[in-house]
């Protein structure tokens, strides 16, 4: 679903996508065998809802300011339901595959763009408010106390500034 709008000199759009990706793995020759007894479960990449809002506004003659806000369902994650110990290692017994969700994902990107020479120079910041979106979750035995289990949120990028320069080859295709 896409909504486009122009307000004064600002243009922008909102897009929303709903999707569902599921996997099923069945063990051949055995009824009810396989991951989660051969039932469908959310695919590891499944983002049920995805919303993005884009705004672009020219600043003077040369510069353009652009911003993108993204909001999405957290990725699926398998949660442990209990723990046990073997050979001094604390291990998890897991519930249904990918039945839980990571926290909601959102971030704001912003950039300034201007024409420079034959191309465009862009200064930007990805994830402007430095939110540590969860990429995945790990469960482990604490290193300081072997009786303690902990959940670890793994994030990949906080705020990342960027500079890019794109050259345009105006119609000079070979």
């Amino acid at each position: 679903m896409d909504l486009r709008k122009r307000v004064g000199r600002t243009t922008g759009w909102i897009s929303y996508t709903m999707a569902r990706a599921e996997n099923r793995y069945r063990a051949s020759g055995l009824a009810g065998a396989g991951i989660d007894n051969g039932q469908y479960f959310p695919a590891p990449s499944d983002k049920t809802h995805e919303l993005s809002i884009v705004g672009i506004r020219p600043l003077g003659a040369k510069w353009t300011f652009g911003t993108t806000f993204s909001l999405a369902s957290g990725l699926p994650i398998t949660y442990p339901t209990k723990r046990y110990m073997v050979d001094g290692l604390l291990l998890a017994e897991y519930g249904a595959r990918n039945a839980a969700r990571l926290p909601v994902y959102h971030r704001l990107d912003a950039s300034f763009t201007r024409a420079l020479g034959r191309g465009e120079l862009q200064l930007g910041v990805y994830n402007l408010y430095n939110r540590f979106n969860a990429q995945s979750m790990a469960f482990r035995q604490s290193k300081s106390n072997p009786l303690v289990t902990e959940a670890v949120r793994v994030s990949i990028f906080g705020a990342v500034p960027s500079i890019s320069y794109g050259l345009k080859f105006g119609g000079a295709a070979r």
Partner: protein
Amino acid sequence: MKANNSPVRRWCVMVALLATSACEKVVNITVPEGAKQLVVEGRLERVRGAVTGQQRIRLTTTDAYFSNTALPPARGASVRVVEEGGRVVSFGEVVNEPGVYATADLIAVVNRRYTLQIIYQNERYEATEVLRAVPPIDSLYFKDRIGQLGPQEGLRATIDFRDLAGTQNFYLWDQFVNGQRLTAADSTFRTRVVAPDDGLDGRPISQFQPYDGIPVSKGASVLVRQMSLSEPVYRFYRALSDQSANDGSPFAVPLASVRGNVSNLTNGLIGRSATSWQPKSRRPGRSRHSYLGQSMGVGAPRLGIAPHHCNFWWTVMRRGCRPRVAPTG
């Protein structure tokens, strides 16, 4: 150079800081608590040079994932082992060790089949394994780390042995430093040090460092144990290592429960299914120490009220050598 305060430099520092700031954070979450299950931790041992009839099996139950207390012992179970040929050996609960069942009357014999039978809270559990032969460790000594990335300083316990010819062997190594078994072999490698003899059948293995990630401090007393596993048990340990080494990185194996070889007979579990989860095979086998091989979960169905995930297994265990003391010089 006046670069110290230049905006370019400050910008670079900021970029570097931000790029490395992304990482891991311990968070509080609530997870549902599953039904309790029996956990069986046992092996039959035949230790080279110290053969006894003493055997122990530990029974515990699972607990809430974030319980942070010792695992509850499973008390009052009936535990016995049926030897090939029909002799039955009962294990009694040890007085001062709740959940530990022991006997002094079971001398394990190589190539003999043993069946573990447990009755706990009116449910019957069973597992079967054959005791496997294991070659002795010919020598144990200390050397610098061989052929691996990572920190190289310090000596590593190093062993030589000869693989048994004509059979496929799967090994597990334990290393004790000053009497304490190392539980983390090498965080970049795997938690339990296991390997198959693929491509090495009958050949001498020299300068193998099972715990090559861990330097031995000077003067420490070191004992290395080499054990022989069956293939399902080897796979169990591989799965165990893959799961406990899971750091949530995009390249980690999916989180999944590990299955042992104990079946719950009461809940109508018939046969066993391979869990369809397959950890990736790892192939760091560059050196002569084979780490080739692949693994998959040890199969057993997941079901019902009190299934099992247990690692009942037997092994012939041979003490490598007497404890060696790392050189102080």
